[in-house]
């Protein structure tokens, strides 16, 4: 329960962060721009023409509007997923180091709060912020296009949810890095490194044959086995956004693994945090 109060405290603190507010303002500005600049002519559920930034109406492939917009949803999903992870890692990097800042950590430890709850609460609080950002971007886009076309396609929101769950893996590593190093820059670096390594891990079977040494290949396969397959999940998010059927069992396993990876990282951070003297 105390972890939940810590999470609420993180949310309160987030409301005063300029970078975080700027991120939400940027998302809102993009959504408003799309809403104001895009005009669509829809006839009986079929997209007939598109007008962008007041330019002359352009003929498009005449097709059921949700089908015609699938490539757009795929592109937007790519932007939200990968952009969200990248900017999310940068914007949230400061939360954990500020929790451990001299003066504040001593004050927090003087309260009847277990150390594990402090870290867990911070983790949950940041994940709530990330989830709200992902769902705000995806849901806002669905809403804007829904108002324009009359077709509300919720699949992009599910794709946004995959982004939030993937961020759980990244932020687990960022939080633990902050416990070890107590630096916002190092925390952001850890997040971005895991983001890049996760993309590499998604293509481990394609990459591993290129190693000439058996030992190097074995090491590569062992290391990447433990890394979250970020690009695979990104591709799945795009598939879901474009209403392409996916193997739900395999998807559930991958996402379960992502969340466990994040929790494992937090457990590692708690182990280190329990041993620290302040």
């Amino acid at each position, binding site marked *: 329960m105390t972890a939940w109060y810590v999470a609420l405290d993180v949310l309160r603190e987030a409301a005063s962060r300029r970078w975080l507010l700027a991120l939400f303002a940027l998302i809102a500005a993009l959504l408003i721009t799309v809403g104001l600049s895009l005009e669509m002519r829809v*006839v*009986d*559920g*079929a*997209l*007939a023409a598109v007008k962008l930034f007041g330019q002359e109406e352009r*003929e*498009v*492939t*005449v*097709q*059921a*509007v949700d*089908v*015609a917009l699938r490539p757009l949803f795929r592109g937007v999903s790519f932007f939200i997923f990968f952009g969200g992870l990248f900017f999310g890692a940068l914007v949230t990097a400061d939360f954990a180091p500020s929790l451990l800042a001299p003066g504040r950590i001593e004050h927090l430890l003087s309260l009847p709060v277990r150390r*594990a709850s402090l870290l867990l609460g911070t983790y949950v609080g940041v994940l709530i912020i990330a989830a709200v950002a992902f769902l705000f971007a995806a849901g806002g886009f669905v809403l804007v296009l829904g108002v324009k076309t009359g077709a509300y396609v919720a699949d992009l929101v599910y794709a946004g949810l995959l982004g939030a769950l993937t961020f759980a893996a990244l932020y687990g590593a960022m939080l633990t890095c902050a416990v070890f190093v107590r630096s916002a820059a190092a925390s952001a670096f850890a997040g971005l490194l895991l983001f890049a390594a996760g993309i590499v891990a998604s293509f481990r*079977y394609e990459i591993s044959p290129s190693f000439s040494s058996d030992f190097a290949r074995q090491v590569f396969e062992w290391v990447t*086995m*433990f890394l*979250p*397959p970020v690009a*695979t999940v990104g*591709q*799945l998010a795009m*598939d879901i956004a474009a209403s*392409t*059927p*996916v*193997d739900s069992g*395999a*998807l*559930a*396993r*991958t*996402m*379960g*693994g*992502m969340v*466990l*990876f994040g*929790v*494992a*990282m937090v*457990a*590692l951070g*708690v*182990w280190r945090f*329990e*041993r620290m003297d302040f």
Partner: protein
Amino acid sequence: MKRLGWLLLAVVLLVAAAWLMRGGESVDTGPKRTDVHLPRRATPDDVKRMHRRRTLLPRKPASPDAPPIVEVQDPVLRALPPRGPGDDAVVVELNAIRHSPAAEMFLRCMDEDAKQKLQELRDKFGVDPLQDLDRFVLGPNETVLVSGDFADFDTSALDGLKSQASYGDQGTLLEYADGQYAATWNDEMVIFADSLEEAQGALDRLEGRTPVTESALPESAAYGEAYGYVGPELLARMLPPRDGLEEQLLAAAQDIELHLDTRSDVGAVFDVRGDDPAAVEELGVMIGAALSVARIKARTDGDDELSQLLDMAKVIPDGDRFRLEMAVPLDYLRKQLGACAEPPAAP
């Protein structure tokens, strides 16, 4: 030990996470196979087939004193009468379709009664519809032309045959009791016509006795497993019903060129052209809307397979013309036909 608990938990969770994530690697990502091949232009195989069919055919010189002219042309296209506005001229590549994956499935599902009827046709006419026929053409003036191997074709087996006589170098004219006529040429073509003039005209064009006019079907349009020009009524019948659609088709569409591909799945392209770009654009939007409404209805009715088929139907506008594309994946046909469509298990 208590302090090591978190470390142990981290290791256990990390191993469990790796097991789950790697287990999910079977996730099939990326664009799914919805890319049914559509006959938007001639493929190299179509061009090869076109060249293979070109035959040396005599052509009537412009003046009687001029030397004889021989040119290479597909005899089936040469035999067709000229096409007037709104006339149909459709070629169906029977042999190619017969050996397509879709037709193979239909043949596997053919019942004994149908097999028996095919055998009766073979016995009666000396022609095997599944082996000897190459092309079926529905030409202008209701001319029907069938090409293939007619070396063993027994014309005397035709019901109501009144008389037959040789005509020209390699032709035979046949007259029926009901006033219909037919012509055979070089054991490779049978032409059915409404009048003697039509039947003779086909043989005259083939043997160069009449000036060659523009073919009902240019070689450039001869690609796919079915191709040619169809009337607006046929297209209207293929589309979901919509108020005013047929009238708009009749008013706006001057030419509707059809191409069908059955080499893997079944894909159809209708290239619709008209003189009035605004009317053609409106027609395209009407067709797109009709397909969209049909798709919504299919989803509402819980017919997911039809809904997915309609997902693939689209109208691509291009000035005074538009392309209507429709596709039927082989998997859809397999599901519709059921277990009989599966190939027999290898022994």
